[in-house]
């Protein structure tokens, strides 16, 4: 049996590696689509690699989050950095899931049309960036330093909304997700 701390290190390394790969491939894909790099093979390769890496990262993310809560000293949220990590990782998880579901259920047509391609690239790269930011916050918490310290990011400031606002956001999100999935899966009664 391994400890939560070791399991957290393993799962976060998987998450960070996968998301970094996905983010790079989304960027390359957008560049190819804008024909800054003219390579038709690269379009297909970056599409596949980006979404497979994203899928792998999504699988590993819940393990990283829950093992992180278990491994943290004291109660799960004993520092503002840990609260920010929670917010960042869950937001990144949502963006990545959206990118993957879109690509999975709507096909490669979303990467051909410019607007949908930009949304897909944005969600994929934003998810990757947020996950890397989460990892940086983890480094600041456990070792007191991180590569992104050059930006002096305010990890010790948390923006905690009142529960009522969070509940509204949650209900709005649930409703829009349910409607979107219903339509995407083609089960609309209309």
């Amino acid at each position, binding site marked *: 049996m391994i400890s939560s701390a070791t399991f957290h290190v393993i799962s976060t390394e998987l998450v960070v590696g996968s998301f970094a790969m996905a983010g790079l491939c989304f960027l390359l894909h957008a560049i190819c689509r804008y024909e800054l790099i003219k390579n038709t093979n690269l379009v297909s390769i970056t599409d596949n690699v980006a979404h497979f890496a994203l899928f792998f990262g999504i699988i590993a993310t819940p393990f990283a989050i829950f093992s992180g809560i278990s491994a943290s000293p004291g*109660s799960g949220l004993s*520092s503002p950095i840990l609260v920010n990590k929670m917010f960042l990782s869950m937001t990144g998880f*949502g963006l990545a899931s959206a990118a993957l579901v879109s690509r999975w259920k709507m096909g490669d047509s979303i990467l051909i049309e410019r*607007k949908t391609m930009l949304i897909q690239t944005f969600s994929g790269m934003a998810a990757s960036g947020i996950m890397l930011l989460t990892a940086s916050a983890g480094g600041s918490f456990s070792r007191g330093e991180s590569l992104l310290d050059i930006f002096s990011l305010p990890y010790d400031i948390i923006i905690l909304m009142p529960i009522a606002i969070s509940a509204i956001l949650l209900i709005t*999100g649930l409703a829009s997700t349910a409607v*979107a999935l219903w339509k995407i899966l083609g089960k609309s009664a209309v």
Partner: protein
Amino acid sequence: MFRRIRILFVVTILLSLSSFTQANPGGVGDGVFDMQCGGACHGDSSLNQTSSATISLQVEGSPYLDQPIAISTVISGTQLSYSGDLGVFLLTDTTGHSDTPADGQWEILSDSNGGVNNYLEGKLLSGQDNFSASWTIKPTVLTTTTFYISIHHGGDDIPYFGISQGLDIEVLPIPDNLARLSSDFTPQTTRPLGETTTVSIETEDVLSVKVEWKVEGSSINTIIANSSSEGVWEFIAPASNQPSSIQWRAILEGEGPSQTTPWFTLVAQEPPFEVDETAVYIQSFALFIFALGFILSLQLKFSKNKTEEKQWEQTEEVLQDSSPTAPPLPDGQLPPGWTMEQWQWYGHEYLQELKEGAQ
């Protein structure tokens, strides 16, 4: 499809839950716990092995009813150095449940970590071979209680458990005119950094109070406490600019027997970070689901527009229908009197007639 998603979801939840139910080698923080941790350090007590650590237990002060005494412990042993992290319990029996001092009708006034907990966590620093902890407690009923110190620690991927010999303490009634602390006196245990602290001592049958205080590892300082009102005495503890603790005790003198209180601990520390965990978890999940719904809705909106545009966009089909492919020109040029547009539409009929005429 949905079946596979359901299976994946259930497996993910089960695997995630396992991390909540296993051991917590990083500790759970100080708290009031029974011997079996209440789910704290070691998830399954059947996996524990016996620690080789030596646990000594000492009592300071006379155990009068409603008067504080100090219980201190020193834990030593080479096995401790494997882990470094150590959890120490003050218990009133060894059954594993209902064994906190409160269950034995004792009140914890302070602990050496600056709280009022029976379970303390600490770390054995490199080079140290022992760990100390102490509690200031007072009995609330006349009784005899057996105290134990229990420890939990790790090492070689094995959870270790140890428990001391019992120490019986019989609570005595208060002698007449005993110079003593007030029965509702509760010592201050924490204070902010960088500020001098006025410490109040409520007493009964006391005419003068002398206070001794010390920082760990230094000599004892003595000051005379001033009376601020009847039965209330005050002294000023110097400011501390770094997280640290001082210990103090009062020597109470009156018309009856004098008494020295046990050492109380006053910890200077930054205010602990506190957050409403429910609000954090709800906001986290709200951010996740909102990001998911927002991106999906955007994708759906723009994809749908494209589909509708395609549905009504018939130009290509009309153009294909309206411009048939021109047949090959006879001898490479248009027949006399024909235009190219006429040839495109009716050229194949001309060629058909030409073919029939030749036959």
